[in-house]
Structures are given as structure tokens and as C-alpha cells.
């Protein structure tokens, strides 16, 4: 249950925006305004390399917007951020992905009318056959395509989608699409995977295997940053938790400590976060006890 990674993550005191021993992603002064609403206002954020970091916070806290900004899908009003020391501000989303920072989406974007295996193949990088002129000459890309397909089959097996290989992605269930999207993101061997609510809509039976997949990523040296509302999952697999509220980072730290933080409980978890709702009488909640 508890965090198994006991290596030191923070450099110095643990506080919102604190420095990390080995950050993979560093963001400074990132703001995004929608009309009068300052959706994201992050003064400083560092994501530790090789760890699983959870980004939590109430609805409208700016988590997904921050994801969009960091991956180039949206443009911030101010701010700079770098990935492995390379400046990423203003870089187009496809370049961000090529540099090894790959994301998934809250609303799953499986390519419905492509087969599952074609979805996977599309995730691979540097396929010469994806160039217009080389596409005409199959011998130039057949070998690479073969390798990509083998890699895709291994991943499909790991994610238990191998039986669906030739089906259109549209024929998958919501949970299977989440799995496909994650497996597809892994086709490029990313250094940092950013998962936007990977558990949303996934049935409990699949949840455990999805958790194992995410932990498996870390074992392979991939850094994971994920947005999630499922506190069980956050406690279970994350090494570090960052809490956002109203666009700002309000707390961060190891999961056990963050869950006890009064500011986090007030802003997000609520007074009964640690109670099983089955045992709390509704009247007690209404009375504010």
C-alpha cells in the first residue's frame, strides 16, 4: 500500500514549488488566462525524474490546462519550461512528443476507424514510410514496419489487447480504449508519459492491471506524471503528489504526508476523505460532524 520508493526526491524543504534532486521537467511562471479567469498560475514546478508523480486537485483547478500548456497543445500567456534542459516554450506539440514527452487525453482519443494494430503502429517514431516520397517504395520501410509491428504486438499482449488486434478501435470498450491510448503512447519509448485521468471509466477489474502497467513503466525508467481523482490509485502508486487549486500549486510531497495536509483536505479531499462512506451516516455529514 505504502510508497515503496524511499529515495530522496526533494532537494531541501518540502513546500509547494520546491526544488528536486533530479528534475526532468522544470516550469517557471506559467500562466494561462481565459477571459477574466486565471486558469493556470504556476510560479515554479519541478517533476522528479524516474518517479511517478500525481497531479491532483478539484475540478477546474487547471490540471488539464497545465497538461495542454506543457505539451504545446495550448499557448500560455507567460512562462517558460524546459524538459531535460531543453526549452519547450513555444515548441509545437508534435516536436514535444518527438523529444520524448508523450501525453494521453482525458477524453480518450483512440483513432476509431483505424484498427487497433494500426493505432499502435502510428505511435512509433522515425518510420521512414511516413514520409511522402519514401512511402512509394515499400523496400525502404518494410523492415522498419516489421520491427514496429513486433513491438506493437508485445505491447498489445502486455495490455491484453492482442485479441482485438484487427478490430477497429471504435469497437473497443471505454476502458480498452484507455488501455490502447496508453499502449500507443508507449510505442515511442517516451522519457516522460503524461496521463490525463487514466482511470476514468475503467472498470475495477482493469484498474489493478492498469496500475501495474504504470508501475511497470517506472521500473523501465520512464517518468510518469498523471492527473487522477481516484485517491486510492494516487496513494497506491505515486511517489510524489502535487496538489493544484484555482490554478496554483498549493501543496506537494509524498502521498501520505499530502493527504494529511489541512490545506489539501480543505480544498479537495473533504473532511471525510479517509472514511469509508458506507460507515458514515449521511446525517452526520449533513450536520457537519
Amino acid at each position, binding site marked *: 500500500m505504502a510508497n515503496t520508493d524511499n529515495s530522496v526526491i526533494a532537494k531541501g524543504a518540502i513546500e509547494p514549488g520546491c526544488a528536486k534532486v533530479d528534475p526532468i521537467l522544470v516550469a517557471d511562471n506559467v500562466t494561462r488566462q481565459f477571459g477574466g479567469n486565471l486558469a493556470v498560475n504556476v510560479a515554479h514546478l519541478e517533476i522528479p525524474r524516474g518517479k511517478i508523480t500525481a497531479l491532483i486537485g478539484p475540478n477546474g483547478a487547471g490540471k488539464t490546462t497545465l497538461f495542454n500548456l506543457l*505539451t504545446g*497543445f495550448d499557448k500560455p500567456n507567460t512562462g517558460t519550461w524546459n524538459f531535460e534542459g531543453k526549452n519547450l516554450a513555444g515548441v*509545437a*506539440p*508534435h*516536436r514535444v*512528443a*518527438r523529444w520524448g514527452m*508523450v*501525453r*494521453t*487525453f482525458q477524453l480518450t*482519443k*483512440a*483513432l*476509431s*476507424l*483505424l484498427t487497433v494494430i*494500426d*493505432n499502435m*503502429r*502510428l*505511435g512509433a*517514431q522515425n*518510420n521512414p*514510410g*511516413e*514520409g*511522402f516520397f*519514401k*512511402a*512509394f517504395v*515499400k523496400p525502404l*520501410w518494410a523492415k522498419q*514496419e516489421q520491427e514496429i509491428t513486433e513491438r506493437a504486438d508485445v505491447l498489445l499482449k502486455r495490455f491484453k489487447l492482442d485479441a482485438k488486434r484487427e478490430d*477497429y478501435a*471504435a469497437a473497443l470498450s471505454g476502458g480498452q480504449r484507455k488501455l490502447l*491510448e496508453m499502449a*500507443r*503512447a508507449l*510505442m*515511442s519509448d517516451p522519457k516522460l508519459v503524461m496521463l490525463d485521468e487514466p482511470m476514468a471509466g475503467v472498470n475495477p477489474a482493469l484498474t489493478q492491471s492498469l496500475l501495474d502497467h504504470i508501475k511497470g513503466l517506472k521500473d523501465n525508467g520512464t517518468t510518469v506524471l498523471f492527473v487522477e481523482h481516484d485517491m486510492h490509485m494516487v496513494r497506491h502508486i505515486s511517489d510524489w503528489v502535487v496538489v493544484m487549486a484555482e490554478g496554483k500549486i498549493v501543496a506537494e510531497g509524498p502521498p501520505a504526508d499530502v493527504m494529511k495536509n489541512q490545506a489539501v483536505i480543505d480544498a479537495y479531499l473533504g473532511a471525510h476523505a479517509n472514511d469509508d462512506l458506507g460507515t458514515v451516516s449521511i446525517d452526520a455529514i449533513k450536520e457537519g460532524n
Partner: protein
Amino acid sequence: MDFAQIFNLTAGELIGVFTAAYALCALGLAMHFGYTGLLNFGQAAFAALGAYGYAFATLNLHWNMWGSFAFGILCAAVFALILGIPTLRLRADYLAIVTIAAAQALYYAFGTSQFAAVTGGSNGLSEFGTDFYGYNPIPAGRYNLGIITLSADEIWIRIVAWGLVAVVAVLLVILTRSPWGRALKGIREDEDAVRSLGKNVFVYKMQSLVLGGVIGSLGGIVFVLSSQTNQPSTWVSNFTFMTWTVLLLGGAATILGPIVGSAVFFMFLMFTQTFLEGLVNIGALPFLSIAQVGQIRYLLVGLFLMLLVIFRPQGFFGNKKEMQFNG
């Protein structure tokens, strides 16, 4: 009523030049819409640029057939770049609006007397096919091909037109089955997903727009070479809509679809024309005149399209799971 003649005329459309020209234009649209999800409502402009480019290069620059073909293609490619650079970064609907507007603008520009020195104004251009027909290896004369009799030149333009259709179709089959084609289909499904996988979506959409436009320009060149006349009135928006009809008849995300769709479309037009004329002539349709028959058949095309949408939305060859009218 002469049923043999109705049959012969209808069957003749199967290898007609216009059938091939529309098949080419629809193949370009298949590239745009069927495989990339680009809504191009200005295919007439691409075809017109091919036709005017070819005629201009021959008449004003005195280039040979090869140079003229290349110039027509170049005009369409440049047009695609000009349309694509501002619009391909925006949502799909913007391209639809911009292409239809640009095609209308070009149509009026070609017809105005202002540019008559280059475009021939409302009369258009003619007599630019001498070099093309100079390559005709078939001895002059008339040839009986069983159901129809054609002159040597008429056979030559059909060979070239259908040869182009075959070459383009083979190239498109190769392309759409390649990883490049897979990326395009991915873009058709969800641009952002493909972006998140490290593909430069803008470049892919631009390549598709240029390629489909160039194929459309070949259709335009073939269209005007058959009679060696290029009139601005050919390139009305109706040309675009007929091309769409041909595409949707056959199936939007197929290669064979647009070709067969074009053949069926023109055979249907010819059959209804000759058959209704026959009926009018024997007095079976007292409420119709011969002149009205030409209009009525498009009404029937509309009816036919509606039935298709209801009963076979994926077209003749489309995969019901893959691509339908609702895109």
C-alpha cells in the same frame, strides 16, 4: 424508340473522356476527404487551373505537351499551397468555406474581360491540343469499336485519359496502404491524437491537399483536351458538386469507388437523357419537352443520391465500418 442506340450511347459513356476526367477529380477528392478528412468544396478550381495552365503554357509560352502538363499541375499545386497555409491550421470547416469562396473567385476571374489576353475572357481558350494530338500513333480515320465508332483522335484522348486514371489509381493504392496513408487516416479520425504521437499534422494535410489538387488538375486538363476548348462556364460550382456526387456514389475512402462512381454517374445521365427523349418523341410524356429532359435528369440524379444515402451510405465500394456520409 431506338433501344439499340440508347444502349450504345449509354455504354459509350463507360469509356467516355468526361467519365475519366470526373474520375480523376473525384480521386483527388477521395485523397482529400476520404483519406484525410479535408473538406474541399473547390475541386472545380483545381481542375480549372490545370486546364487554364495547360492552355496558357501552350498558347502564350509556346511550350510542348509535356511542359504544358507540368505547368497546369504546377498552377494547381501553388493554389493548394496558397489555400492551405492559412486554413490548414484551423478547424476543418474553414477549409470548406475558403475553398468554395476561392473557387468562385477564380471562376469570375477567368470569365472577366479584364484578363482576356491571358484567359480569353468569357469565350475561353481553344486550339491548344495540336501538340497533344501530334503524339497520336493511331492512323487517322474512323474506327468501329463494336458499340461505338470513334475517330483516331477520340481514341487517343480516351487512351491517355484512362491511362492517367489507371496510373493515379495505382499510385494512390500504394500511398494509402503505406505508413504515410495510415498517418493521414489517423488525422481524419483525430488530429490532436496524431499530433500527440509526434507527427507534423500540418505537413501531412498540406501534402494531401496538394496531391489531391494536382490529381484534380489532371482531370481538368483531360476534360478540355478532348474538345480543345476551355470555357470558363465549365468551372462553375456545379462541377465541384458533381465531383462530390461521383465520389460519394462510389465510396469516399476507396480508390475504385470514384472510378466506378463516375462511370455509373455518366451512364445514368446518358441513359435518362436518351430514354426520356425517346419517350417524349413517341408522345408518352406530353407534359415534357425535349429541352426539359436535360434538366429533369439532374432531378433524377438527386433522387438517386437520396436513395443511396438512405440505403447505402458508404457508397458502392465503401466499407460500412470505415467511411460513411456522416464522415
